[in-house]
């Protein structure tokens, strides 16, 4: 079976199981609406959902871009300077002991209910995986290449830029792939804590008004967006970073 056919089959199977659960369990629509109702709500509320989805997309992309850039720069700084490693690495590890979710209310307090607090949340949640994956790869340059560079009288900065960074790009790519999964989580948590726009906000709003079909419609859009983001990042990594 081709990949497209197996994906389609899995999707249809999932929808059938969902409908069977609703019908056989005789579940009321405010607990679990059937796929037919959710799809029709998705269509009838498409303008509303699109408006909120656009906000979430902007938050996720900004957070992803900034988080990847900060992670890239931090990993290079750590790899280049033993002093930075000695001082910053314990801080980085300690910062991971604080659950990022617990910071969401503080970020909302500091940065307000708008875009800033969600971007910051997405940035924070992806910063560590990107930094850590890229830094580990930077420290694992094959020793033969480094020795060749030394015999060629290379400067440490040029060895870093011409050999260690390109050799570590596959590690950066794995960090980015993780980031593509985490960034939407960060943005949604940010929206749950305090927002007036975005898919996370729409889901809370629909939940509060017992519009569970709308909530599921927003959830499906969110899942599709996250999948598309992951596929796009994966394709970009293959094409641009060769990894």
């Amino acid at each position: 079976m081709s990949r497209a056919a197996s994906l389609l089959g899995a999707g249809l199977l999932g929808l059938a199981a969902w409908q069977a659960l609703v019908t056989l369990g005789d579940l009321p629509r405010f607990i679990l609406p059937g796929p037919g109702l959710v799809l029709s709500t998705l269509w009838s509320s498409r303008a509303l959902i699109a408006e909120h989805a656009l906000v979430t997309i902007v938050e996720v992309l900004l957070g992803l871009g900034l988080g990847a850039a900060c992670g890239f720069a931090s990993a290079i700084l750590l790899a280049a300077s033993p002093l930075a490693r000695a001082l910053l690495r314990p801080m980085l590890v300690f910062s991971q002991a604080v659950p990022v979710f617990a910071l969401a209310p503080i970020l909302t307090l500091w940065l307000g209910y708008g875009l800033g607090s969600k971007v910051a949340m997405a940035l924070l949640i992806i910063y560590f995986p990107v930094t850590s994956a890229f830094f580990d790869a930077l420290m694992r340059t094959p020793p033969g290449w480094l020795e060749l560079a030394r015999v060629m009288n290379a400067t440490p900065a040029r060895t870093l830029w011409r050999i260690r960074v390109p050799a570590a790009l596959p590690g950066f790519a794995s960090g980015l792939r993780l980031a593509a999964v985490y960034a939407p989580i960060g943005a949604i948590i940010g929206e749950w804590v305090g927002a007036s726009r975005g898919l996370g906000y729409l889901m809370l709003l629909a939940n509060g008004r017992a519009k569970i079909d709308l909530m599921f419609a927003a959830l499906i859009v969110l899942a599709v967006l996250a999948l598309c983001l992951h596929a796009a990042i994966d394709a970009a990594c293959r094409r641009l970073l060769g990894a």
Partner: protein
Amino acid sequence: MSAAPSLRLSGRAAIGGVPIFGPVTLEAPAGAWTCLLGPSGVGKSTVLRLLAGLGEAVTFEGEIAAGDGAPLEGRVALMAQSDLLMPWLDVTANVMLGARLRGETPREDRARAVLARVGLAEHAGKRPEALSGGQRQRVALARTLLEDRPVVLLDEPFSALDARSRARMQHLSAELLAGRTVLHVTHDAGEAARLGRHVLLMSREGLETVTPPTCAPPRRFDAPETLAFQGRLLRQLMETL
């Protein structure tokens, strides 16, 4: 290229308290090809690393010097068993790597000229992954030539090649590295018999000079004197500890 100096290494070496070799005295005459032959584990590669300035892990007591008294740093090129090509650079950029790493302006015309000398002119724009093992090692040779250092250290650079590529690569290297001081570490008696103007046999006992046939290298691999010398080297290799 400045005039090729002779090399001299005299002393003993240990790594983490474990003796590796010595005391030995090794001399490689100026502008000639010297083969350092020996079984695995007698410290041949350690000798090379010390001469290349890569010996921080080695505790060395003794003296490493060039015959002209000037420091060796910056006058040495290294070719290893692995070609050490960067997979993200094309062949030309790999050959010019040294200039880029030193912040000099890379000379693409010169890179193309050395690629032509190793017979890879039509592969200049390819990535290393598109080349065979022998071609990749020829790129490494071109990179070494472009560095234009008077001393060239070879650490079994042909040992991973198939017999045909190895024989052609030996011939090409002997031709193109002529006039430089070459110290070639190998465990292959046939290779030492073909290439060594001077042959040193290294064992746990120390170093021994073995006199090769008088004809100039690269010697024909099927010439009777080459084969006889190869046999003699192999027998001595078998008899050492």
